[in-house]
């Protein structure tokens, strides 16, 4: 068990380092000189050179990469060109919008998808199954930002139950903050839930055909009891895998959804930073998001260990 964990941690570290290198390289290759962007068109060559020296842009690539990674580890993410505040401060403010949003929509996704998928699988080929599958197909086809607008149209414009956009802030009390996050979270959850429903359904259908489910039936368990006690837990392994992969889609979704609802979160910050060529913010944010994806997938790996005792043996390889 300890050996398994150690191996996973080593793999995590390697992936994280690889991620920082690739992001650094991409940002190097992409056109655009930060100093020129800050000073604008028509800057004097010597002021430009002075600023480049001040920003450390004239140092060799290796040194700059080393400094940047060191900064990431120590929490010194550098200074935003446009906001003139430390990037860590910007991120620290906005993460309290994006993180709750992602968590709420993930919870919604699971609460919708797993019961719906199990239900459809247990009614295979019948009307309920066809209905759930059709809804899932439609859910996948609907762009989430359009669904967000429909939610605004119905719940904000017509019914007035929730704000059409903006974020009240947590200091106004959790009630109003959660109200601002409700519609965005639903909009983010819809396509994820649709995909996860399909995965759950087919995974449960597969485990329902397993011998141990028949064994459970032979013990006298009713179909429903055998389904929930034996088929579902075994079916969760591929479901958890997809949930891990979905998390990266969820982060990407926040870029669009935060723009639809004008939420001051990380996605919107990234979008604005890109528009304003605030490259250091872009670089830090992307590495943060990519790091989150990598860590979430690491946690998914750990979840396998909890779900499947076979993997706890040292010689078992990661799925």
């Amino acid at each position, binding site marked *: 068990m300890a050996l398994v964990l150690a191996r996973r941690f080593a793999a995590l570290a390697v992936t994280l380092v690889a991620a920082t290198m690739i992001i650094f390289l991409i940002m190097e290759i992409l056109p655009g000189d930060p100093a020129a962007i800050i000073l604008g068109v028509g800057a004097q060559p010597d002021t430009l050179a002075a600023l480049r020296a001040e920003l450390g842009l004239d140092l060799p690539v290796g040194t700059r990469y080393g400094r940047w990674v060191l900064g990431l580890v120590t929490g010194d993410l550098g200074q935003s060109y446009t906001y003139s505040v430390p990037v860590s401060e910007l991120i620290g403010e906005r993460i309290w919008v994006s993180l709750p949003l992602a968590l709420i929509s993930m919870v919604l996704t699971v609460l919708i998808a797993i019961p719906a998928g199990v239900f459809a699988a247990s009614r295979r080929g019948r009307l309920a199954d066809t209905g759930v599958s059709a809804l899932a197909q439609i859910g996948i086809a609907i762009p989430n930002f359009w669904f967000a607008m429909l939610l605004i149209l119905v719940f904000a414009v017509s019914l007035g139950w929730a704000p059409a956009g903006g974020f009240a802030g947590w200091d106004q009390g959790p009630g109003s903050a959660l109200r601002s996050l409700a519609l965005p979270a639903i909009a983010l959850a819809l396509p994820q839930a649709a995909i996860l429903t399909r995965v759950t359904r087919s995974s449960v259908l597969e485990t329902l055909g*397993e*011998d*141990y489910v*028949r*064994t*459970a*039936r*032979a*013990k*006298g*368990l*009713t*179909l429903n*009891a055998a389904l929930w*006690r*034996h088929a579902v*837990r*075994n079916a969760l392994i591929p479901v958890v895998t997809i949930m891990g992969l979905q998390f990266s889609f969820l982060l990407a979704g926040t870029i669009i959804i935060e723009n639809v609802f004008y939420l001051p979160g990380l996605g919107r910050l990234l979008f604005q930073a890109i528009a304003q060529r605030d490259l250091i913010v872009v670089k830090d944010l992307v590495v943060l998001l990519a790091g989150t994806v990598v860590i979430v997938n690491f946690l998914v790996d750990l979840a396998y260990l909890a*779900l*499947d*005792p*076979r993997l706890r*043996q040292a010689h078992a390889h990661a799925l």
Partner: protein
Amino acid sequence: MDLLSVSNLSVGFDTPSGQIRILDQISFTVGRGQSVGLVGESGCGKSMTALAIMGLLPVAARATGTIKLDGQDLLTLDDTAMSGLRGRRLAMIFQEPMTALNPVQTIGHQVAEGVRWHLGLGRRAARRTAAELVARVGLPAGRQGLGRYPHELSGGQRQRVVIAMALACGPDILIADEPTTALDVTTQGQILDLLVQITATEKMGLLLITHDLGVIAQMTDRMMVLYAGRIVETGPTAGVFNAMAHPYTRGLFAALPSSDLVTSGPRGRERLAAIPGDVPAPSEALQFGCAFAPRCPLAETRCRSSEPPQIALQADHSVACFRPQGQT
């Protein structure tokens, strides 16, 4: 009255191109403390017989006839009522111990599940019962033993767990579907010994399904030979072995490794060298005449045109063949 009485049981599948019959009018009984063997090659309908009795046939299958347990016809019960009998009065042991156990639950949990479900025992009482059951099938029953997962056990140990699960509520009828086929030779003997010992002490009725005449000879009081969904020969085991009447039974016997009656090779999957050909697919069989005729060395014209009659030979020993062997 017999404990389990199956009469005229037929099982068929509805397909777009008509009904396919898997079992055709089979009848037999199993008494308390009696051990009945059902033998035949794979694909002849043995497992369908077991699943029909357990009420676990695939959804597309249709069963007709009667299956009476203490006079109550199981085929008329709905699934809830059947669930109440399964595991409590009817129990089953499956062929593949590698897949019959849930890989993510401890064996203690899986053995205890039946008694918790049927007898409503609490966690602690169920655990005690599970420990007793596990000890009875010869596995370590301490906290260590019960907390193990299936992948930590050998094939024979897993099959012992499956047997413990089947015994949990003290069933009246135990159906064992090829219980030793997936095991190695020495383990096969141990598991069979365990089954003999348990069914004897518990006075259960045992329906033992196998492709292996050696196992039948060792284990059963009565036997039936199944071919393409029909019982072609049946009688007391000793009587049938003394005077095998059906060419198919003889073929099965000739296919046994001569040195040893109990085992049939490491995985028991050799083809029957003595009988050329294969069991016909259900869609092809049961049209006209004797289903075995195409493979039978003694087949005549009438074997291919009309169904052979059921001939009584000795007390209780009967055969469905125009040319029964060894009768002079």
